[in-house]
């Protein structure tokens, strides 16, 4: 478990003060102050509030002329005027949502904490729950049991790389997760092709659907991740899919996500995201970034990586693709690092509030819209002061 890996050996644990006597509440107080609990986050609608745009926001996309962003408490917001005003969507959960993708202007998916997958058919105005963490846990257990029931020959025929012992170990783990409940968040969702959509998340979760989400299926043995590392990002470049995650994990799939091969990794710390840009001549520039300013670029589909010199030790959490073969990396300290596809740092800048950024995009009025811990930040792209490296 994560907790064990991050033993807090460096952390100064506060020494609790001497035990204090603690009074029980009198009957009068019980009468005055009824005890409470809120409706479960998976059963409760997202609260409608004008402040949603100022709360934690984690992802933003553009579909046709509509911008859609999402974040904490089930907040999904859409704008039809390039981000000047936002309307809040109807969402049947109030968990923190982490990522969003669209296949068409009307059809989209969003994922988030508690193993939630949501779908919309009206361009993001109304959302329905397709999967939650309880169902996801059960599906994973069932899938592992199914694989264990296969004969050795069948497993080899299906190119399943895990031994029976490994599968048993994974099953044990999966059953522990089931006991914990809907605890694993999905961290990324991606529309792949036709009706194929994929979602990846914590502790190695990969889910895939071939019918637009009518049936979500776990891929438990299609990638080599016996340690159940977090899978933090999933992107598509032309016909190839890439996953990056914890402990330097990097994978590639050439068959629309059914099977995954491990890529050589330039780093053993966590990657938080990937992005892809293309030069004018169509050369693919694959970028991966993560903890403490570690960022790398590859122009050969992830076979070789070269380091991007960010010049800062804050973590890179997001990126924005620009025109002219350029891209911007977004940091946990509100910094912007502008690179070209040759891997050269062109300039750096800073948001006014220096809060952590998660994602961003450039809208059709040439504004840079950034989302993060303090909600939405608008920057006028031509007016950004870029400090030379």
């Amino acid at each position: 478990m994560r907790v064990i890996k991050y033993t807090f050996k460096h952390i100064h644990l506060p020494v609790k003060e001497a035990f204090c006597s603690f009074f029980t509440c009198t009957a009068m107080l019980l009468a005055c102050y009824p005890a409470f609990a809120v409706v479960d986050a998976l059963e409760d609608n997202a609260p409608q509030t004008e402040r949603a745009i100022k709360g934690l926001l984690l992802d933003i996309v553009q579909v046709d002329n509509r911008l859609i962003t999402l974040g904490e408490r089930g907040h999904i917001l859409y704008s039809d005027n390039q981000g000047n005003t936002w309307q809040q969507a109807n969402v049947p959960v109030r968990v923190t949502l982490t990522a969003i993708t669209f296949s068409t202007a009307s059809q989209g998916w969003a994922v988030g904490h508690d193993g939630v997958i949501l779908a919309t058919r009206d361009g993001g105005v109304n959302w329905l729950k397709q999967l939650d963490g309880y169902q996801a846990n059960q599906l994973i257990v069932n899938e592992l049991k199914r694989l264990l029931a296969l004969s050795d020959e069948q497993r080899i025929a299906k190119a399943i790389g895990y031994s029976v012992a490994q599968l048993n170990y994974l099953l044990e783990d999966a059953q522990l997760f089931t006991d914990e409940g809907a605890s694993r968040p999905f961290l990324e969702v991606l529309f792949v092709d036709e009706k194929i959509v994929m979602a990846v998340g914590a502790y190695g979760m990969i889910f895939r659907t071939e019918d637009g989400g009518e049936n979500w299926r776990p891929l438990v043995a299609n990638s080599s991740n016996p340690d159940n590392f977090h899978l933090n990002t999933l992107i598509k470049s032309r016909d190839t899919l890439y996953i990056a995650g914890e402990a330097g994990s990097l994978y590639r799939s050439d068959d629309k996500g059914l099977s995954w091969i491990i890529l050589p990794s330039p780093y053993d710390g966590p990657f938080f995201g990937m992005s892809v840009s293309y030069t004018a001549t169509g050369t693919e520039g694959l970028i991966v970034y993560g903890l403490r300013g570690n960022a790398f670029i590859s122009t050969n589909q992830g076979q070789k990586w070269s380091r991007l010199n960010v010049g800062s030790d804050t973590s890179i959490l997001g990126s924005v693709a620009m025109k002219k073969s350029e891209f911007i990396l977004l940091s946990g300290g509100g910094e912007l690092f502008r690179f070209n596809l040759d891997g050269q740092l062109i300039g750096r800048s800073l948001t006014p509030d220096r809060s952590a950024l998660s994602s961003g995009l450039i809208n059709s009025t040439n504004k840079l819209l950034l989302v993060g811990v303090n909600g939405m930040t608008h920057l006028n792209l031509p007016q950004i002061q870029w400090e030379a490296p």
Partner: protein
Amino acid sequence: MNYIRTDISAKQKNSLAQKLGEVVIEKTLFGQRAIIIGLFLLATIWFGFQAAQIKPDASFEKMIPTYHPYIVNYLEHKDDLKGLGNAVRVVVENPNGDIFEREFLDILKQVHEEVFYIPGVDRTAMSSIWSAGVRWTEVTEEGFAGGPVIPDTYDGSVATIEKLRINVLKSGQVGTLVANNFRSAIIYAPLLEFDPDTGEALSYQVFSDRLESLIREKYQSDSVVIHITGFAKVVGDLIEGVTQVALFFGLAVVFSLIMLVLYTRCLRSALIALGCSITAVVWQLGILNSMGLGLDPYSMLVPFLVFAIGVSHSVQIFNGIVHEVARGADSLTASRKAFRSLYIPGLTALISDGIGFATLRVIEIGVIQELALTASIGVGVIILTNLILLPILISYFGVSKRAITKLVNEEEGHSHPFWHFMATFTERKKAAVILMIGGGLFILGLFLSEDLKIGDLDPGAPELRADSRYNLDNRFITENYSTSTDILVVMVKTTADKCSDYQTLDTLDTLQWRLEGVSGVQSTNSLVNFTKMALSGMNEGSVKWNALNRNQQLLNAASIQAPPGSFNSDCSLAPLIVFLNDHKATTLTAVTNEIELFAQEHGSEHIQLLLAAGGAGIEAATNQVIGTAQYKMLAWVYGVVFVLCLLSFRSLRIVICILLPLCLTSLLCQALMAQIGIGVKVATLPVIALGVGIGVDYGIYIYSKMQSYLDQGLELGDAYYNTLKTTGKAVGFTGITLAIGVGTWAFSPIKFQADMGILLTFMFIWNMVGALTLLPALTAFLHRK
């Protein structure tokens, strides 16, 4: 107070009580004059000795309504809310640069150590960037890394100062312990309740003095500015300011002496009247001290009132004595006769004042109850000093010839055009005009008093003036730091070990989001904020993990790292801190309403949200108590006065004539408060009751005197003219003397004393005007021949 004299002398002249009074009490007192004076002298020496030792006193708990459920909750969980209660902030500012300078850091360290050793500071909970417990953390590939903000290798070199600068940025203390502009730093020192050296309750005055002498005086220079805030400092400054009240007292005594001499034309009697009134104050203070009570800033007005009431009663007795002397009696006989005719009415009047003050006890706030007690004691003392001692003393010294001539001239002599004019107020035509004016004022009062607010209306410490050093210091902190000092704390209570449960945290999280939408709420903070941050940290600092997780082990692992005070020792209580923009009553009400609404909407047995701790929480409770007590108190005061008047006069019409002008005064006083921005609060609430209690005497004096003339067969106009010449003049004198006595307070450095002074002055004058104009006008219509 002649009113009962006429009443009683007419109806009960031969009653047993009267006989008893004359025979036993009067004989005892006047038969043993020397012994009585000797006893008074001994008692005065004793009480004087006690009074000299009286200490200014202000305790936190006395100023709060300890029976209010909010406060009951707070006091019950006080031990688990350490560091949230009473603390002082010492800000060390570098006016010429930033904090990252060697000399400045050295001074900051010295101040930190100096504060550390001041008795009363909770050393375990104290923090500044020089505390080992103030740390920075960051996520690395290996896990968390961290250390004290001041590098272990700190030696004042440029390199280690640069390291310090980086650590400060990583520590999250910018805006909390370090100013947003890096030009100052805070030493945050929570206080113990007891002085560890003596084991006695911590004296805020001593503590505040030590802060001044050991910190401000010692370290403030051209290159270092010290700012200090905190409740203890407010109290210290209050007590310091309150001692100036002695000056105002001196002024009031001088004014009264001048007025008395002008009124009596007899220096001897004026000095005796003054001496007796001062004796009453000395006794009152002495009794307080022997009861183990101190002089609270809020009770500071009581000695003034005692003095003023003493003076006004002295005038009545003096009048009585001169009257008898004018008829040819010697001093002793005159004094005995005056005593005989006045002791029952005087006693009744003073008892009704005392009961009026005592009704303040219905307000369950310590300082107000103490004020009620001290005021009642003071009035009781006046019975002895001014009803007994005064006539005995005058029986020795006698009154001057000029006093007698003046009295004879006024009562039987030439005509007074002004009194004649005022006597026409009893004619129905003029009376109607006056009543219409009164009605107009009543409507105006209703209209203007609509904006009357409960609670404090100003930022900072509203007890002190806006430009006081304390409030300037407080403003410095608000302007340069992010954390508001107006804090309301909700106590989130669960069964043991459940404070970090998913359900608890999720409920708390939902409430916090709702509260952040309430106008006036700056931000909120609780174990939830830390847990989310820690969960994100445990997942390599990914912002997507900035959310609660249903994995309980993960939540426990995250919350265990929370800073001290985030939850109690058995994890059954976690404070939710609400930072507010200000402590205006509207803000507080909006927040407490939202929390209580949330409580009603969601019901289960596992989590309780208890209101309220923190300065703003306590103020919210105080406001609620005062909001309801305001009407309760008025009902009691008017109820008591009504009953006493009815008992004395046995006529509802007369009671109406006396009470209606008082009601107008009360209403106009509220209008005045609304218009000049004085809120109804602990300091101003008693003022209306005191105003009514004293004001009713005016009406009583006047009506009873007038009644006696009516009984003699005079027409209403003549009866009122004669009343004005005697009692009316006394009422005018008393009203002006009292008003001047408290009017000087308007110049007090303590804002609430100034407020009290302004309101009391207004009430004394309006009560007098009302009694002299509205009362006769009402009588014109209600009087039955």
